């Protein structure tokens, strides 16, 4: 509907950029006057004349970014069943706690005696994560899951090297794996060998048996898998790898399904990472920051990336410090990892306790199966069995009727529901990967099921409605091809 020249919709934000809004001399902020005697400046040849930067008022800053925020879908405003991403509710208190004076304003290089509280928190979180996964060696240093993976693979290589078994240069990875797994393996100088999934979505054990050999450095298994399935042959698999002399690496990004239900270490996993920003309550921030601790069995702890928090003494006399493990693979980044995220994870675990954590996973699993049960007559399942925390549907039936997984995803946006993860895992055609998480109510799941069923109806009754979706978002579908072909990556004066 057109409601007047130039205006399509009330409050449509004017999309001009900060530089377009800039007016010479305008200011949002002033700094204090200098209170020290004037100091001589360096040689003028070192100094820059001017910087081209925005000049706007404080109101403009607030209004611009406030309006921009409203263009987003988010957990705080929308159901966001994005598979593999664990878009759950993160308690608001955790953000507050992480920002407390005494936590948010301490310098990473302060002497240990001035940051005992901070290091104690890290140590206790290490212990809790070790307990939850059954892998007691923990470094919180990695800054995201991908860095955790990389750290884990470096540890595997260091382990083999120490055993004079350095010719192990292969990482076996299932075809369903997340892209970071092969990317990390290749950074770690490993050759990626793909193991097939069987028709049940499990690792093809026979195929794995063929591939596992004296060149196997590590087998990387996402558990539950990216299909949302728990690998039923896990014990056999870890045995195959161990028998071949390799290590088992678990991608723990999906730990939200396992809390209190099983410990990875008990299954023969040697190394894993955990995405604190998924399972343990850091809001995703539009794409980070994250925290991807790496966890290992006891004898591998000597290789962990530095630093690791340590405790000396007991009771009120105990002191805490950060240290580098004996044969550390080194620092992976500037300081000690994402401390504020560790603080949130610590708060989350403390608040929930063991009972709470277990019910997180139980409810996450029930929610995913509830959606699966509500949709499986309309959408194909990637695997026709109970799932864990997420279910992967396939829009092949819809595709045959002229509507793709992408179309369905876009159409969901019209209902204020964020799209599932599309076209992943790669082994499922027209994949729609749905992870409702434990925090959504049954009513929300019912609504989602109803909408998905309605969309399936529309495939026949009103396909153009789906093809043209989304209809009333700030933009319609965007031309990604041109964006990539002729990249415009920054503002410039017209």
């Amino acid at each position, binding site marked *: 509907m057109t409601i007047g020249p130039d205006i399509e919709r009330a409050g449509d934000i004017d999309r001009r950029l900060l530089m377009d809004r800039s007016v010479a001399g305008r200011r949002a902020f002033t700094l204090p006057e200098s209170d020290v005697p004037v100091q001589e400046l360096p040689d003028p040849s070192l100094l820059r004349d001017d910087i081209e930067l925005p000049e706007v008022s404080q109101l403009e800053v607030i209004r611009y970014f406030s309006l921009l925020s409203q263009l987003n879908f988010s957990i705080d405003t929308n159901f966001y069943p994005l598979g593999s991403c664990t878009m759950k509710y993160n308690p608001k208190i955790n953000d507050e706690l992480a920002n407390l004076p005494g936590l948010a304003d301490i310098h990473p290089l*302060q002497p240990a005696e001035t940051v005992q509280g901070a290091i104690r928190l890290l140590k206790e979180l290490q212990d809790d994560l070790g307990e939850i996964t059954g892998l007691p060696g923990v470094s919180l240093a990695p800054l995201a899951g991908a860095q955790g993976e990389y750290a884990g693979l470096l540890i595997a290589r260091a382990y083999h090297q120490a055993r004079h078994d350095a010719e192990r240069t292969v990482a076996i990875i299932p075809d369903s794996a997340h892209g970071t797994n092969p990317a990390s393996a290749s950074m770690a100088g490993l050759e990626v060998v793909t193991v097939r999934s069987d028709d049940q979505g499990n690792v093809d054990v026979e195929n794995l048996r063929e591939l596992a050999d004296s060149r196997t450095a590590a087998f990387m298994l996402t558990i539950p898998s990216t299909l949302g399935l728990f690998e039923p042959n896990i014990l056999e698999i870890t045995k195959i790898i161990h028998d071949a002399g390799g290590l088992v690496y678990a991608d723990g990004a999906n730990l939200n399904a396992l809390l209190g239900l099983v410990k990875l270490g008990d299954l023969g996993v040697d190394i894993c990472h955990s995405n604190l920003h998924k399972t343990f309550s850091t809001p995703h921030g539009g794409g980070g920051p994250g925290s991807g601790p790496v966890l290992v069995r006891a004898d591998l702890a000597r290789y962990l990336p530095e630093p690791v928090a340590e405790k000396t003494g007991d009771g009120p006399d105990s002191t805490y410090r950060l240290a580098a493990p004996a044969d550390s693979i080194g620092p992976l980044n500037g300081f000690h990892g994402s401390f*504020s995220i560790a603080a949130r994870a610590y708060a989350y675990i403390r608040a929930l306790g063991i009972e709470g954590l277990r019910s997180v996973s139980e409810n996450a699993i*029930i929610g995913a199966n509830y959606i699966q049960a509500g949709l499986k007559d309309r959408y194909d399942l990637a695997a026709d069995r109970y799932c864990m925390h997420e279910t992967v549907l396939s829009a092949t039936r819809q595709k045959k009727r002229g509507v793709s997984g992408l179309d369905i995803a876009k159409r969901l946006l019209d209902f204020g529901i964020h799209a599932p993860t599309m076209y992943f895992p790669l082994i499922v055609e027209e994949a729609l990967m749905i992870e409702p998480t434990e925090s959504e109510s049954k009513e929300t799941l019912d609504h989602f099921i109803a909408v998905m069923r309605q969309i399936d109806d529309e495939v026949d009754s009103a396909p153009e409605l789906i093809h043209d979706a989304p209809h009333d978002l700030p933009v319609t579908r965007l031309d990604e091809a041109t964006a990539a072909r002729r990249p415009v990556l920054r503002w410039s004066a017209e």
Partner: protein
Amino acid sequence: MLDAIGVGSLDDLIGDIPPEHRHPRLNLAPGLSEQELAAEFAAIAAENASPARGYISFLGAGAYRHYIPSTVRSILQRGEFVTAYTPYQPEAAQGTLQVGFEFQTIICQLTGMEVANAGMYDGPTAFAEACLMAARITRRTRIGVLSTADARLPGTLMAYSKYQDIELVDIDPDATEIPDDLACISIQSPNFFGEIEDVEHLTKLAHEKGALSVVHVNPTALGMFRPPGDFDADIVTAEGQPLGVPLAFGGPYVGLFACKRAHIRQMPGRIIGKTTDTRGRVGYVLTLQTREQHIRRERATSNICTSTQLIGLMVTVFVATLGKQGMKDLAQLCYQKAHYAAAEIGRLAGFEVESASSGGSSGSGSSGKAYFHEFVVRCPGPPAAINAALLKRKIIGGLDISDRSDNGMLVCVTETSSKADIDRFVAALGVIGAAR
């Protein structure tokens, strides 16, 4: 809901978990109410020495205390930014995307470079990825690193390149020649000791040998010092923390990454591009995704996935708030205060202000190089002992760098230190020094 699923209990759903390992005993404390949790955190925070408890600090060395404007915190409370995911559905994420585009613009403007990505994990990882990118571009394996760099930069690079056939080569900052086969020389400026390096000269040396110039800057310094883009640098990285990000005991921070347009497709990390929708309206999307792991898998330019979008938002709001004049003023204030502190310390018996890297004699900036807001003090005894004495006076002294400079203490002063704070620090140093 179990009924609708058609099972009797949760256990029916998790039948694939080996029964002998199901429901393990976990040794964790019982849960806490929010009120109890808040009390526990108050206790933890109280165990740390922070400005809130009256401490003043002169630590820098890669993480810097700056005043963070209220606008940053205000916008950081918008749930729509905080609780969104990576903008894979651009129609439902124009907020995040437009902010990222602003961020890229600001990083280009500060560094004087042509293009930037939407952020890396932190400064050192950005630096490491820049060096690896130089190796990819030049197809060379030797990476020159200036000997005045923070050890965390080559340290991270080493960990990142362990199995990638990369060799690190130490380069003297005053070199007049460099090896023929370098992929790049990487220059931290201001360097670890706070001094401004001759980026122009070093970049020329690099280019003469077909190598790239990778420059790692402090973004605050760019409020007054010429940006690497002026000197034809190829890749610029930085720790973004000084731009509105809390110290937070080391993270999360954000790495800044900019380069020449020609190298766009070798750039790691998320990149946001401008485009149009089916109705011709402007919109933004993640672009050049074929470089990334979720498409290219083992052949990706980097394994990075979750990045630091929200920290990028902080940086963007910070720079938008300070604006052109504020960024200049901030750099000047830091410079003025640090130079005042250096001059005062230089007057103390037993203390010399010098550039540790050059081993020069005395006086401020005796290496002859200009410095920004950090400088090296040679102390009359081990800095560790002096720092311990300072701590009793609720002063957190500079970083002990006696491993790199004889009795050296790296002192940083920013706009957050008042003259009174500085004077208190100097007076304490005087007393402690005299007592030796």
